[in-house]
């Protein structure tokens, strides 16, 4: 079937790669070595240009990472290259990977330089810090933490992500499409209430903040909001 090129190459002495006797491979028995397949995209370096879309995962709450990994594997969140890698992994192993990245400290990227009109800034800040009660949108900070660095164990931080990525995530929930729209949760309901204009303003604003701090502890979450997201956060980080 696969017709390939015909030339069969045969060589004796001429071998291209008779570079024998190179350094033997040494393989440390660590998680860092095991997740090399991930950091080709999620690494610290070279996050500019075409890589800008890859979200940072280091330092995010463990339960959140674990939920995402299961969602990718089980087709509740769609990204084929990751689904391929995770296809044959057990929950136990995914949890270990989540733990590893959650504990990993990497320098944050510099904020994106994005020009925003003053009204846009106001719109974004109002939604993020006060919400929009008439549409039942709580302040983003009420769930994602005062400093927007997330809340343990399952709510991610919103800073240090690119504008393209944030726009795509909000879009995925709002369109109910394949990317992230398949499983309803407290976040998808909120995203669906946002207008295009609001979503754009938020994405620009978040991507242009500089980042510092860590996820807040679970107890900063009001019981009402915890309840609203119970499906995602309480059940051991999210069995659907």
């Amino acid at each position, binding site marked *: *079937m*696969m*017709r*390939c*090129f*015909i*030339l*069969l*190459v*045969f*060589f*004796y*002495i*001429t*071998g*291209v*790669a*008779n*570079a*024998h*006797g*190179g*350094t*033997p*491979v040494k*393989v440390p028995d660590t998680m860092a*070595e*095991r*997740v*090399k*397949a*991930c950091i*080709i*995209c999620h690494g610290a370096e070279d996050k500019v240009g075409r890589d800008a879309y890859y979200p940072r995962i280091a330092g995010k709450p463990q339960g959140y990472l674990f939920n995402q990994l299961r969602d990718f*594997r*089980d*087709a*509740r969140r*769609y990204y*084929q*290259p990751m*689904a*391929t*890698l*995770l*296809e*044959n*992994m*057990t*929950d*136990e*192993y995914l949890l*270990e990977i989540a733990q590893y990245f959650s504990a990993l400290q990497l320098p944050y990227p510099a904020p994106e330089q994005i020009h925003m009109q003053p009204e846009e800034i106001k719109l974004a800040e109002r939604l993020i810090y006060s919400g929009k009660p008439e549409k039942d949108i709580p302040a983003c900070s009420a769930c994602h933490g005062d400093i927007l660095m997330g809340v343990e164990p399952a709510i991610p931080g919103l800073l240090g992500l690119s504008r393209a990525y944030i726009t795509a995530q909000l879009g995925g929930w709002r369109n109910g499409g*394949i990317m992230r729209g398949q499983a309803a949760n407290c976040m998808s309901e909120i995203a669906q209430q946002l207008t295009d204009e609001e979503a754009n303003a938020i994405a620009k604003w978040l991507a242009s903040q500089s980042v510092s701090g860590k996820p807040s502890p679970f107890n900063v979450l009001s019981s009402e909001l915890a309840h609203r997201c119970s499906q995602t956060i309480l059940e051991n980080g999210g069995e*659907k």
Partner: protein
Amino acid sequence: MRRLTMILMASSWICAALLWGGIVFAADTVADEPKHPTGTQQVVHGAYLARVGNCMGCHTTKSGQPFAGGRRLSTSFGIFVTPNITPDKETGVGLWSEEDFWQALHQGKSRDGRLLYPAFPYTEYTKVTRQDANAIFAYLQSLPAVSQSNPPHDISFPYNFQPLLAIWRALYFKAGVYEPNQSQSEVWNRGAYLVQGLGHCNACHSTRNVLGASQDDALTGGQIMGMNWYAPSLSSQLEAGVGDWAIEEIVALLKTGITKRAVASGPMATVIRQSLQYVSQEDIHAMAVYLKSLTENESGNAPGVSFSVMSGSLRKHLDLGGQLYEKYCQTCHGADGKGMPGIYPALAGNRSVTMKSPLNAIRSVLNGGYPATTTENPRPYGMPPFQQILRNEEAALVVSYIRNAWGNRGSLVTAVDVDRSKGGEY
């Protein structure tokens, strides 16, 4: 176009994914295991046999209820949707009798007499004994009933035409329980029974004809329809024949997914994760004995084509691939291509790399992958995808290089080959 049958299997993994109007659902499950059957001995045995047959792999969607069906298997004939085989009376097989079930597994007929598509590998399951079939049935009936109706198949004309299926069956399907070969040992026969029957290895590892039939029982290798993976021949030493392997090594590959000279990737990793890792030591040993016998007497490893010394331009061409190898691959697979046994597969002397069809090697480079997570290899190391980094021409260069370095030899690969190897699940 090739065979339906197994495709499906394959498809199992493939799923309709993108092909299908943008809806993506593949299926497959890492979902919860059904609880251990409590009932009788027969039920326990049936649960084991269902594992060997990997019924759950096809009859469960990703994150769906075990055995409730709904998984989409895409093939060149269209998309098959697996049925619910839990004992729900309305939507499953709750009203089925043991005899109805036997008709399905052995004859490929549904309870209402409809001929079943060989996407359901009854072409292999027909070899299962009545006693084993009854045990599987008892197990299925012991499961919690799940009420779930699944959408109909979406098969393109003319394959949706039942009389065509009747003709296909007349040509390619022969019902019949496995008949032991008296000149072979009991162990060998047990292995043959499992490999040819419940294990349905042939569903993938065989050539397929236009209508999707396996050409024969010979495990001769074939591209899995709808899946864009090549399942190598188990009866050729140039591909995946294991005639010169020690039995323990074959056992280790089937159980753990990785050995010092091979790693099971893509759909084969899924088969190991879902099914083979649970097969008893005794049965897996029997399978290994049978598989080994398929190529035991085959000697020559040399491909039929020989060629003289490489031309200078060819060598330059491969050197370019060598530079890419050094930059992207060498840290894991080593300058000598020997990798690290059990962790990073050797590429030197690896048949998956040099096989006539370069498809799998190209796919490994484009998509990367992890070997199956198994009890024996619970924390595997992984290979990164390079699709987002290497252009088609570069991927072609590096694959051509590994096919011809360290004494390997294989045909050169072109950018067109690389492009054709994209798509499909995995």
